[in-house]
């Protein structure tokens, strides 16, 4: 699934990569300067590698909003190769518009608004990373812009085919709550932790697909991906087509009966059966004892209660 995302084949309006930071081992001593939040983290370079292959694979132009210095540095060479496919926007410098009023970013995509002409077809947008604009532009405003892309596939008249963004789980305004909110609106969530990507993809019909994949970054910036385990598919299964576990599927002989066999079976009179030709008085509840004396029976004609004085 990670492969189909990086090739731009996955149909999903908003793909959110969540960088959960390095694993902390309980009991291990950490020095005073060990950093939980690392711009050069492994997940972040993984995201850049995905972007590189994404730009090559997609036929639409990709606009990258660089909210980190290293993003533009990493992608500069690629931009020279594909100038029409990859457009870099430096969002970090002067985002408040203090030097140049026109550069003030009032909402998440204001920097693209100015650079796009009317006749542009659909574009893809990449935000690396979302952590900074959540602080500078505001959480509520960013969420609303992202939701517009999910709902309408366009923002301020720009048609957006797909939006990829990275967010660092440790670098958000309101802690874990904001990550939950972001995940809630994203159509696909990729959780990155310890070289494992857990992907939750919502299909438009409401079906949920979950995958876990292991990734490694090779020396040339390529990524190798292998599925960790095919975790069971979660679908809102329709009960009608549920797999049957009836014995006839497992038995090595025929379990059912043909019509002829059923007819023969019904002719057999079994004990305790209520037969239709029982006499009427028995049906009515009156009882009668029929006894056929045996040859060896000791039949006594005397009244057994003769000695009693009744």
């Amino acid at each position, binding site marked *: 699934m990670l492969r189909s995302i990086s090739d731009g084949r996955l149909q999903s309006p908003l793909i959110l990569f969540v960088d959960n930071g390095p694993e902390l081992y309980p009991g291990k001593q950490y020095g005073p300067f060990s950093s939980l939040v690392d711009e050069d983290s492994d997940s972040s370079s993984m995201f850049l590698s995905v972007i590189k292959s994404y730009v090559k694979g997609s036929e639409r132009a990709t606009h990258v909003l660089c909210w980190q210095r290293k993003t533009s540095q990493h992608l500069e060479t690629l931009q020279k190769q594909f100038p029409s496919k990859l457009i870099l926007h430096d969002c970090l410098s002067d985002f408040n518009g203090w030097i140049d009023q026109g550069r003030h970013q009032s909402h998440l995509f204001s920097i693209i608004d100015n650079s796009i002409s009317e006749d542009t077809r659909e574009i893809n947008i990449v935000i690396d990373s979302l952590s900074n604009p959540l602080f500078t532009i505001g*959480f509520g405003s960013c969420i609303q812009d992202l*939701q517009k892309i999910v709902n309408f596939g366009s923002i301020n008249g720009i048609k957006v085919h797909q939006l990829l963004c990275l967010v660092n789980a440790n670098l958000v305004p309101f802690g874990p709550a904001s990550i939950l909110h972001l995940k809630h609106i994203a159509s696909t969530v990729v959780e990155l932790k310890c070289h494992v990507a857990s992907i939750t993809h919502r299909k438009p019909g409401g079906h949920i697909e979950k995958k876990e994949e292991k990734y490694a970054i090779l020396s040339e910036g390529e990524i190798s991906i292998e599925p960790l385990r095919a975790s069971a598919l*979660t679908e809102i299964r329709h009960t009608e087509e549920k797999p049957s576990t009836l014995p006839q599927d497992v038995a090595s002989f025929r379990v059912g009966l043909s019509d002829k066999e059923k007819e023969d079976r019904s002719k057999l009179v079994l004990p305790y059966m209520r037969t239709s030709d029982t006499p009427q008085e028995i049906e009515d509840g009156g009882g009668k004892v029929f006894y056929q004396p045996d040859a060896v029976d000791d039949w006594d004609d005397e009244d057994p209660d003769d000695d009693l004085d009744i």
Partner: protein
Amino acid sequence: MASLTSEGNITSFQKKGRNRIPYIQGTRQSVQNAQILASSGVPSLDHVLGNGLPVGTILLIEEDVFGTFAKLMLKYFLAEGAACDHPLFLASRDIVPKSLMKDLPLPIKSDSGSGSSQGAKVEDPMTIAWRYQNMRQVQSAPGSSNSGTQLGHNFDLTQTISPEDLDSCDFTLWSGPEENDLPVGGFINPDYGFLLSRIQKHLLDGQFGVQDEPSKHSILRLAIHSLGSPLWVNSSCGQSLDATIKKDLPRFLLCLRSLLRESYALAMVTVPCHLFQDPAIQRLCEYQSDMALKFESFAGSSYETNPVFKEYHGLLHVRKLGPINTLATPVPESLDLAFKLRRRKFVIEKLHLPPELQESAQREQDDILSGNKSFSCSSNQSSKLDF
């Protein structure tokens, strides 16, 4: 003084000459508490809630994680309104309200399901176990036995409402504040106030108040989708996310409830409670609404592959059944409820364990539910009870 009040009491007991409750299409008077009931659109859900939703109340739905079933409930609620010619009001910031309206299911005209089950019964008489022939069949879907007196319609999820029917239906959509709106209520996020003032205006304009006497009484169905979702975060909120919601959301529900109490209207509000870190928000919302249900979907959770829940798509937790016009709430016979979504129909059933068909030394659902706990009384760690 005492005699005066007793006299006053005697004179105040007057039997009203006329029936004050007007007849409204798609409603019925409750036998328990004389409340007007309207259907939620799902007959099995009506049964759980005491044969229908009382008019003038809020039903709170705590959304499942992906919101699929909560949205489905709203669709049923609105479709039932459309089938009964009730005016509708749909508010959502997360989705385009119009797209939900276009997706409403169509009512089924006649129910042919019960006839076929009757036929099957006669075809296969029990010859040996004939004593069981006349036993009542176990009804796992609550409320399915008295289908003759059913309040709502049955809907087919595969068919959606035609555009002409949608045009003839009286509905209002809200997806955000408009320019000349004025917020009410002093909320931190003014959007709550905008929505509330719009509802208030709508109730006034449509003459839905109990005092109003319009030519024909009807019931306004208010559906509010995903209230308190990320889209309800104030664009300039400075505090933590939960603190704002904790103040605004229960307050909104309280204001809405007081509006509904004196109107011919009922509301279904879905809230994504799984997004709130503070459990108090959920409790407050339940407290401020009349009835609360929680939908727990198995989609994406470990329950999905659990054999115990093989037949179901999720669990329904009844969080609150408020007493309305009565001291005691009607309690459904079972609170272990589960739901499943078939291709055409959504049903709520009593939770049953599946039949055990595989030969196994131990029943596998026991392992899963009990975890590593050992049931044996003796101290040895063998998992089987030896006799």
